[in-house]
């Protein structure tokens, strides 16, 4: 396996599996991350998976760089194949259009298609969570079929609401907290993407898949109420 160990200072090393953003390389990142959970290395503080690499934060007073790399190499030698990884899919309900999806019609215009077709493309395919970053719980997701043609808006909005569903090309992110954003907003989910009050604050983990499910305004209100009461169960299945 063509793996590079990049020195990220005296307390971190970045294990890089390639330069291309694709499922195959990201799967290797995941596999090493999983391996380190199964066979932890004493002195490793935490690992952060990104598109093509896994940064390993460690404590040099417990093990030095050379020792860490040796331990990592051992674990890289017998990684499980990607086929053995189960696909975890989470359903994320979305209320498309309306006040909380102000760019839906604009997106249809950009694609020279109907609003229904935008919703179909967005909700029919599964999105892969490459990584989380930027803000707590913020997923970087992509789908692999029928990408939209449009990119970002010409000028970003200063602030968009939490739980917005935003899109460009083959990407679609969920916005955990109010933030500036240059992507088009096609809907809103009643689910919390990050809620510090909960024991497990985050909706998604890197490596999971998301299927967007269109819902009505009434369903949105109902689900939101359940989320706030803590009774809502995110629909999750493995394949």
């Amino acid at each position: 396996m063509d793996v590079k160990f990049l020195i990220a200072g005296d307390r971190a090393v970045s294990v890089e599996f390639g330069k291309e953003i694709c499922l195959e390389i990201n799967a290797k990142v995941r596999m090493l991350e999983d391996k380190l959970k199964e066979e932890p290395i004493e002195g490793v503080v935490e690992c952060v998976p990104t598109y093509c690499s896994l940064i390993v934060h460690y404590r040099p007073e417990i093990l030095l760089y050379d020792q860490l790399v040796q331990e990592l190499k051992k674990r890289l030698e017998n990684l499980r194949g990607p086929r053995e990884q189960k696909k975890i899919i989470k359903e994320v309900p979305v209320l498309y259009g309306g006040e909380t999806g102000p760019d839906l019609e604009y997106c249809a215009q950009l694609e020279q298609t109907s609003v229904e077709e935008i919703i179909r493309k967005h909700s029919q395919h599964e999105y892969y969570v490459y990584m989380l970053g930027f803000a707590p719980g913020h997923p970087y997701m992509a789908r692999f079929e029928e990408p939209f043609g449009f990119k970002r808006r010409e000028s970003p909005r200063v602030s968009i609401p939490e739980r917005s569903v935003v899109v460009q090309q083959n990407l679609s992110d969920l916005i955990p907290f109010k933030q500036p954003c240059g992507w088009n907003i096609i809907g809103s989910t009643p689910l919390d993407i990050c809620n510090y009050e909960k024991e497990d604050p985050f909706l998604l983990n890197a490596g999971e898949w998301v299927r967007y499910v269109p819902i009505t305004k009434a369903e949105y209100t109902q689900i939101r109420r359940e989320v706030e009461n803590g009774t809502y169960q995110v629909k999750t299945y493995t394949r």
Partner: protein
Amino acid sequence: MGISVENGGILTTVQDEGRFGYQAYGVSTSGAMDSHAFHIANLLVGNKMTEGALEMTFMGPTLTFTCDNIIAVTGGDLMPMLDGQPMPMYQAVLVRKGQKLQFGGARNGCRGYIAFAGGLEIPEVMGSKSTLLRNNLGGVKGRKLEKGDTIAFTAPKTELSNMENRKVPADIYPADEVVLRVVLGPQDDEFTERGIRSFFWNSGVITDEFDRMGCRIEREPIEHKGDGNINTDGISLGSIQVPANGKPIIMLADRQSTGGYAKIGTVISVDLPKIAQSRPGQKVRFIQVSLELAQSLYIRERNKMLELDEKLNGQEAL
């Protein structure tokens, strides 16, 4: 019973060692900017060195004590005063109920730490008391201290063994050029040879864009091979990002866990307190060192802290 805030100062927050285990979810670690001064403050008052303390910036807060406790003030000299009288720094001091702690202003350095014996009653969020301002997380309601806040002490003390020996020499921070030692990587291969030479050869100046997230440096641009963008990857503490404009940004405690700019090098751990205590307008120069040296300096610093802990608090632990 603890402290009551009469004035929050410019930027006073609760910080501990940092929030670990959640960077994979996009949560910054936060934690004390000057870990050296922070550790000493805790050890002086008999705490474990990672206990939550107050980090203050330039102008400290005004605090009234609503019960007795032993405290220590370390880091930048922000001129601490107890009831109007100068208070010694880098030393455990018993403060009585009703006394007022305030600060005159930054005379040397810019970030100070106040540690309280027994620690502060601050709920841990994801395992840490550290405040992450950007996401309103941890500390006192996820924000800086404000007038009217009260923070209780967890286990205040009026005596500690060895009280007269609970002092160490104060750190003094350079007011002119700050020299930061750097280990190359992770993306030094994204820069031209000329870019790397210039990075070490020419000094820069710390700009006003300097906060707990990062420190932007004005200087001759550092030349990339390409456009300076990489596939977003993980960022370590002290990482030096160089965006397309060629001007470096040192990533600090509240840095984002991931980012898409090429990182030419990483400031070594033992030199991070030097940035934490520097000010806009000061010159910065980078010097290349080996990873082996950086790690041995880090271990030496850690051992020094463990020795200090043993010397001051060895008996307490028994």
